[in-house]
């Protein structure tokens, strides 16, 4: 396939960026999107130009490092995938592919397509610890958890912290991420003692960091590579209300 790649270039956090368009030839439809960018970067290096900086790590959809807003959608045109899992066959030969970084005040651009997602880390820190008893190894079956609750907790825990929810939300809201992080503990006996504090602090931190408020458009859920349900947001709202009433 031959493509035109229209990509956001920005020297550093302070520089004013802009779009550059590059031609790329003979890309295999079976290559992944990040492989296509690797090929583009080889080409740029050979031409003596600065390669395009982008985030990636595992390249198998589990780490959440890859980002990219491709043709107007977080992680590109495919559903339920990260950018590293996206294949070039999802594009048309001769197409212009527009690549932008995540856009959110809370995720400032560091260079080209790389953004600083430390804000998520800060929200996690504000959630605090989950108390665990020290001493001997407890018996594996000592704490019984209903299967449904365990399943729901695991569904929430599937969040890889990629930030697609924020990137795609018209309000730059981090509600789906925070909801996943609160919800993964909300139904489990572990972490019960800290439940109220966790919900309160994480929501407060999210607001403080400049993420927008949720207006329930549901775009986050549609673009989340892990299919985290916005029903977790309803649970977060409940947990938060409960915590506020307790306060």
């Amino acid at each position: 396939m031959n493509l035109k790649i229209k990509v956001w270039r920005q020297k550093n956090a302070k520089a004013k960026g802009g779009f550059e368009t590059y031609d790329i030839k003979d890309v295999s439809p079976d290559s992944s999107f990040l492989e296509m960018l690797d090929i583009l970067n080889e080409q740029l290096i050979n031409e003596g130009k600065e390669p395009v900086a982008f985030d990636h790590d595992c390249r198998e959809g589990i780490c959440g490092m890859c980002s990219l807003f491709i043709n107007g959608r977080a992680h590109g045109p495919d559903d339920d995938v990260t950018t590293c899992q996206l294949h070039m066959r999802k594009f048309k030969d001769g197409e212009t592919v527009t690549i932008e970084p995540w856009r959110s005040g809370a995720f400032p651009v560091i260079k080209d397509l790389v953004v600083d997602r430390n804000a998520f880390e800060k929200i996690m820190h504000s959630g605090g610890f989950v108390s665990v008893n020290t001493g001997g190894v407890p018996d594996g079956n000592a704490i019984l958890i209903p299967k449904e609750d365990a399943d729901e907790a695991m569904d929430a825990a599937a969040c890889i912290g990629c930030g697609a929810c924020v990137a795609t939300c018209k309000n730059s809201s981090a509600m789906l991420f925070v909801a996943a992080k609160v919800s993964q503990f909300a139904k489990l006996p572990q972490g019960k003692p800290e439940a109220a504090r966790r919900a309160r602090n994480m929501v407060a931190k999210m607001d403080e960091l400049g993420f927008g408020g949720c207006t329930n458009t549901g775009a986050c859920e549609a673009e989340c590579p892990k299919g985290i349900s916005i029903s977790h947001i309803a649970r977060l709202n409940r947990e938060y209300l409960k915590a506020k009433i307790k306060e």
Partner: protein
Amino acid sequence: MSLSGLFLMVFLVVHLTVNCFLFAGADAFNTAANFMVTNPIIKVVEPILALGFIIHIAWSIVITIQNMRARPVGYNKLNQGKNSTFASRNMFVLGGLVLSFLAIHIANFYVKIKFTHEVGEAIVDGVAMHDTYTLVTNLFTVWWYVIIYVIGAIFLGFHLSHGFWSAFQTIGFSNDIWRKRLNNIGRAYAVIVAGGFALIPVYFHFVQ
């Protein structure tokens, strides 16, 4: 936002119910309207209703500004057609259009009845009251008022098609099962309310 929205949605039901008396004729509607005007409960609810609107609108302005600020640099290419509904992305604009309609609506009836007294008198069972029925039916002889009212109802319908479920989600009353139910109830509610309010001007324009 959600509590004020829920309150306004209850108001809409009451309002539409009273309006439906229009179909039962002049005496029935005038009596119903008179009941609303003279009822002491309504005297209390009226300022609360105004407050409900003010809270809803003021808060909507605050969160809209906050949410716009949360993304100082926008996207060059944005494609949200697939991931969310039109109404959910345009609540503020739709609300603003409802508000513009509301201004016209209040000028048409509330102002004429309360302040400029451009309303006749009707006597039903020996009780003197405003002839609101004639005020309404006269207004809808004007075709462009009919159009304004129908369009106003459509904007309201879109606002509610997202707002209904959204309000429940915001107060935490939703899960994977209830979300589908509330979405369906919400859509039905939006269609009934918008359809009801749109039907009245059309009916009185053509049938009367």
